[in-house]
């Protein structure tokens, strides 16, 4: 006997005890597909026959079944399932999970069961139990269809059972092996002329029979609602049926098509909503055509899953949970969308915005709700652009993800409400679940990055309390590790270690950029507020932002932010950047000076007070010691156990003088990075990466390119934008290395922060793994404000040299991978939640406790 079951199904074994259900299930299904009640009884009670725990065992069994079906795994319920109440649970689960239910009944003669039962000492039920089982079974069989099983197979003998062949058939909606390319066409509604124009515009031509086909083998995919309201309904139906029959098109049904089917099936339908015209035209065509249409619509499947599951088409859309499943709920969703059953003020059905919640990987193309423009949200596209209402007919080209439209020749039907502009509220609100909890983020540089729950909890707080509008946050900069601790006397950091690092990673050329002592500032600028709206979904009229490394607005005063952005725009316009890069937005990584602009709080609460207290106290101490030094002292022997030991005033004086000197140098160091800012003119901004523009993330370019391009397009026009000094060093060439070291010494001897050493190419790899995108070598004097004014005193330096960089470096890599991924996703027009996930990850790692001085 041939048993056909859908590739994804919920199968119930039905049969008396000892009828061989388990043997059958294990023979024809994967061991993991079979959930046996005996197994779950044993799991909780150690006894598979303990009927007293059945209820708990079934709880567990159905819990597991539900999880499996949630993942679209075929599941077999191996239990007697003799009572209607037991089977009801199967049917309910099948409905809940929108999966087809299958009943396989083992209907062996009672005598056979009695014989088997007697032979099994482990079971050996009383005879009356067996008889009851068998009579229950016999009575059940005829009810199975009514109970709701979609497929029912009854096996009446052991011979039948032994000769079964199980065939798993594909679901109707499964067209994963069709890869297109497709031209997906929205609601036609009888607009035949526009359809022909659109097909021709898309490159389709007619064959000898007048059937459209595409010379490159593209396929048209119709999203339903072919008829009603428009002028030439039967022409459209014929065109689509011809194309489908010829294998040049596929089509899913729309609600109007289903209504038409109802009519063709002889049911009564109201002659409204433009249906009257379709029916009139159909009747004129004659019965053969009518029957063709009836069959055509009747064979349509609610939705199609195409291209390895990457593309889904459905008339009114489909939510992630229903994709690839089959049930009347799936069908209704695909036909009508996520309707509440309520009506709004204008009498239209209230629709929930399922696309706002859509987080699936598959691209969903749908129509049904006409709008003025294609609406893209979270990888879903509504392409009903209201042709019949005087809008246009649109095709979505896949995999190109472009749209092609033809304007309506006229308005054929009065829209019930004017076609909505789509951008008033695109509903791309982030939700908890997009971020939060333990997260796994896939990036192109590091395949999977795990974010721990405590870190994401910290990031949620920072994001919520401080960060700017997430639409703007398309990147957060990674932390940067210092070079390895120097072995040279009197240095904590030295560029030789940075050169050595890259040499060990097989990198020959590095770029050494002067490290500006300012604050990191990411600048995003759009040419116009309109392009900000279009590209970033920012609707408050702003056209750019300057934000800190934690995603917070750099300036508390938005007026200042605006002034800086306006000046940047002038620079980029004047230098021809917008034109040369063919873009209407740009994201720059910059350093903004002075440091005191952002760090004033730190300066007045930490750095300056330490300088003040230290200088005053040490001056007073030195003075006291100098005075004391003039008094002749006794040197009497004291026992080493006495609490007050002798000491030498001159020695202590030396020590405190040295400390006093260290404090002076410390104050000089921080003063270097402070100046008073009266207005924007007092700022200095040094861009160092052109991160991204409209179609590009520039992580594949060399840092020399970044430096030179910035010099060319951003500097020498407005004095607040400055270039960054850099030199290239060949780390295999000693004289080149010497030049690098000398440059560092020049930069740092007068208090400069130091330099950043980067591999020539932005994202460089060693043994196929990414390496540090940059390491910093900070100046000797500068480090006083990091490690304390007195860090260079030899006793202190010796201790400070013991530091570990492992954790810092691992964070630097992960944050770098996430930052780049965020940019790439943004440039690929991925939904907000996909971009946000990455920057959220960067913030999460920033909460990881790591020595802040590194």
């Amino acid at each position, binding site marked *: 006997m041939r048993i056909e079951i859908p590739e994804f199904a919920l199968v119930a074994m039905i049969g008396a005890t000892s009828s061989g259900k388990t043997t059958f299930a294990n023979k024809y299904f994967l061991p993991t597909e079979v959930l046996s009640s005996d197994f779950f009884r044993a799991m909780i009670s150690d006894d598979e026959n303990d009927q007293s725990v059945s209820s708990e065992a079934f709880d567990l069994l159905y819990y597991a079944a539900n999880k499996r079906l949630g993942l679209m795994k075929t599941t077999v319920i191996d239990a007697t399932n003799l009572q209607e109440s037991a089977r009801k649970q199967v049917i309910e689960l099948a409905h809940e999970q929108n999966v087809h239910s299958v009943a396989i009944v083992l209907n062996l003669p009672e005598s056979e069961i009695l014989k088997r039962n007697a032979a099994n000492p482990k079971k050996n039920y009383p005879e009356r139990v067996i008889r009851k089982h068998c009579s229950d079974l016999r009575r059940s069989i005829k009810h199975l269809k009514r109970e709701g099983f979609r497929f029912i197979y009854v096996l009446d003998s052991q011979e039948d059972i032994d000769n079964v062949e199980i065939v798993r058939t594909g679901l109707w909606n499964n067209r994963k092996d069709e890869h297109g390319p497709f031209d997906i066409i929205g609601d036609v509604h009888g607009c035949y002329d526009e359809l022909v124009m659109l097909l021709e515009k898309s490159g389709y031509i007619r064959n000898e029979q007048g059937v459209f086909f595409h010379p490159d083998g593209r396929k048209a995919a119709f999203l339903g609602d072919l008829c009603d309201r428009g002028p030439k309904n039967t022409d459209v139906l014929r065109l689509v049926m011809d194309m489908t029959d010829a294998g040049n098109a596929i089509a899913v049904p729309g609600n109007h098509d289903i209504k038409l089917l109802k009519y063709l099936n002889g049911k009564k339908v109201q002659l409204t909503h433009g249906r009257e015209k379709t029916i009139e035209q159909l009747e004129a065509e004659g019965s053969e055509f009518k029957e063709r249409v009836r069959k055509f619509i009747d064979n349509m499947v609610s939705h199609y899953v195409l291209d390895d599951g990457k593309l889904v088409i459905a008339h009114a859309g489909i939510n992630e949970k229903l994709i690839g499943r089959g049930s009347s709920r799936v069908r209704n969703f695909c036909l009508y969308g996520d309707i509440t059953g309520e009506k709004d003020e204008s009498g239209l059905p209230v629709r929930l915005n399922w696309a706002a919640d859509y987080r699936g990987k598959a691209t969903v193309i749908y129509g049904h709700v006409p709008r003025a423009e294609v609406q893209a949200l979270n990888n879903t596209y509504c392409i009903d652009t209201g042709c019949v209402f005087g809008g246009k007919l649109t095709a979505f080209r896949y995999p190109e993800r472009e749209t092609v439209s033809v304007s309506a020749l006229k308005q054929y039907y009065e829209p019930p409400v004017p076609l909505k502009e789509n951008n008033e509220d695109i509903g791309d*609100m982030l939700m908890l679940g997009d971020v939060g909890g333990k997260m796994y983020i896939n990036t192109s540089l590091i395949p999977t990055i795990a974010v721990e729950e405590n870190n994401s909890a910290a990031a949620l707080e920072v994001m919520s309390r401080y960060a700017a509008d997430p639409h703007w946050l398309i990147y957060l900069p990674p932390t940067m590790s210092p070079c390895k601790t120097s072995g040279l006397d009197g240095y904590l950091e030295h560029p030789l270690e940075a050169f050595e690092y890259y040499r060990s990673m097989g990198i020959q050329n590095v770029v050494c950029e002067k490290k500006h002592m300012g604050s990191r500032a990411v600048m995003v600028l759009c040419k116009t507020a309109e392009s900000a709206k279009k590209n970033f979904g920012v609707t408050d009229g702003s056209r750019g932002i300057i934000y800190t490394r934690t995603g917070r607005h750099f300036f508390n005063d938005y007026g200042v932010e605006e002034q800086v952005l306006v000046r940047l725009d002038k620079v980029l316009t004047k230098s021809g950047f917008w034109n040369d890069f063919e873009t209407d937005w740009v994201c720059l990584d910059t350093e903004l000076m002075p440091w005191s602009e952002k760090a004033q709080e730190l300066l007045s609460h930490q750095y300056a*007070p330490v300088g003040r207290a230290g200088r005053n106290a040490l001056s007073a101490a030195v003075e006291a010691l100098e005075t004391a030094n003039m008094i002749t002292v006794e040197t009497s022997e004291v026992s080493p156990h006495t609490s007050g030991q002798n000491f030498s005033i001159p020695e202590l004086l030396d020590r405190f003088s040295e400390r006093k000197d260290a404090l002076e140098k410390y104050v000089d160091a921080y003063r270097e990075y402070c100046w008073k800012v009266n207005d924007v003119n007092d700022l200095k901004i040094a861009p160092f990466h052109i991160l991204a523009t409209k179609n590009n993330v520039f992580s594949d370019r060399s840092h020399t390119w970044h430096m030179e391009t910035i010099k060319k397009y951003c500097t020498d026009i407005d004095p607040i934008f400055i270039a960054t000094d850099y030199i290239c060093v060949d780390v295999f060439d000693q004289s080149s290395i010497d030049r690098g070291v000398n440059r560092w010494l020049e930069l740092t001897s007068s208090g400069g922060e130091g330099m950043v050493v980067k591999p020539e190419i932005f994202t460089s790899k060693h043994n196929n793994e990414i390496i540090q995108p940059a390491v910093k070598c900070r100046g000797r004097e500068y480090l006083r404000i990091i490690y304390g004014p007195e860090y260079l005193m030899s006793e202190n330096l010796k201790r400070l040299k013991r530091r570990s960089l492992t954790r810092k470096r691992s964070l630097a890599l992960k944050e770098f991978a996430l930052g780049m991924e965020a940019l790439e996703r943004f440039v690929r027009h991925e939904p907000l939640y996909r971009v946000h996930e990455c920057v959220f990850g960067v913030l999460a790692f920033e909460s990881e406790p790591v020595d802040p*001085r590194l």
Partner: protein
Amino acid sequence: MLLTITMKGKNTQDLGYLLHKNPYRPQCFELNFGKAYVFYTEISDNRTTAALLLDINPIDLARGKQGSRDGGLFDYVNDRPYVASSFMSSAIAKVFSTAMSGKCTKRQELADTPLDLEAVVHMLPIRGEESLVYEIFEPLGYEVSTEKSVLDEKFPEWGESCYIDLTIKGRVRVCELLNHLYTLIPVMDKQKHYYISEDEIDKLIKHGEGWLNSHPAKNKIIRRYFDMRKSYANRLINRLPDDESASEELMSENEETTGNANDTNKKIPLNTLRLEAVKNAVLNSGAESVIDIGCGECKLTSMLLPEKQIKNITAADVCVRVLERAKERLNYDRMLPYRKNKLTLMQASLLYRDKRFRGFDAACVIEVIEHIDIQRIPALEKVLFEYAVPHTVILTTPNKEYNVNYAAMENGELRHTDHRFEWTREEFKIWCEQVCEKFGYSVEISNIGDVDEKYGSPTQMGVFTKCE
């Protein structure tokens, strides 16, 4: 870092006996956190000065002691090595312990006699107003003088530093001077380098013997001494014999009050009034399920929990640490099942729509909105009024106009450093109406706290009701 003690008058070299430190033998002492040196900068018949100099290693502070496994508590860039702080107090107690006790075998009579003494405390951090130094030392019989210094002379616009060099002169016994310094240096600085345990109460009683209880600024001294540990301060005040100043409410100093500054005997904290008003609004709305978003330490939640009308309450905050404190406050882990089932605590954000926000009769958003950047408010509106859609939303926020009644606030200053904005009554009203219009709610705005005729009340509350 440096303290000097000078004795003036006759035979001042006796200071050596009184301090138990030979003027001609400089001495060095090992302390837990570094070294202390005692030496004299002046020795003569009519004037002798002893110096106590601390050498604290900043790296020890940041990393813990060399060889020890404990991590440090301080930043590398830290004023602690240079200032007079609790480190100085500890050094005094260690180096001058006998002198502090008032014992002096060789010159007991002198130790019992008030002498002409002068102490200079270098770089004393005064956290708070400078007048405090006078308020605290003058009643003890000292002539006080202070020298201030700017934060950085190169940047005069940064203003003054919080450090002073303090000189106190008076006729006191040596042990008195030392006990005063020991106790009062940390009172000025407020920070302590060690964990404040209950022993500290006894310590303060011991070193404050004979002067603290009669000090007019007693409560202020105690409060600052314990700083964050208010409960210790209260316990100590209860242990000290009553006097007229003790009835002053300890906690109210830094809190917002109803604003009626003259009415000293009956100040109900504004927060209490606010929570009462919110609680009443919740109960009046008929709500049975409530979510308190931005619950903080769950003060409102704990007021609603015992209400029979409330069947379940969810307390949400964006800050995990705050939730943990709330759990402790509520004794969450030891709650009986009924109450525990009634309460849910969770981390959540008002800027991410959240399924868990749905299905509540009422949502309370108390003193939260002003902590959110103004550009993010539209997101909050959507999360709250469009996705969570509770039947009732109760929202409070400060009334900016009322701030003129807070004397300590500068013009235009906000009530909390984390406030991103504060709304006038008009601004709040406009916002409320706009929300109602957009999301189909109606609103009633009311006042919480004393009503100032011209400027309204300190807090404004909007109760939003979903239109059916």
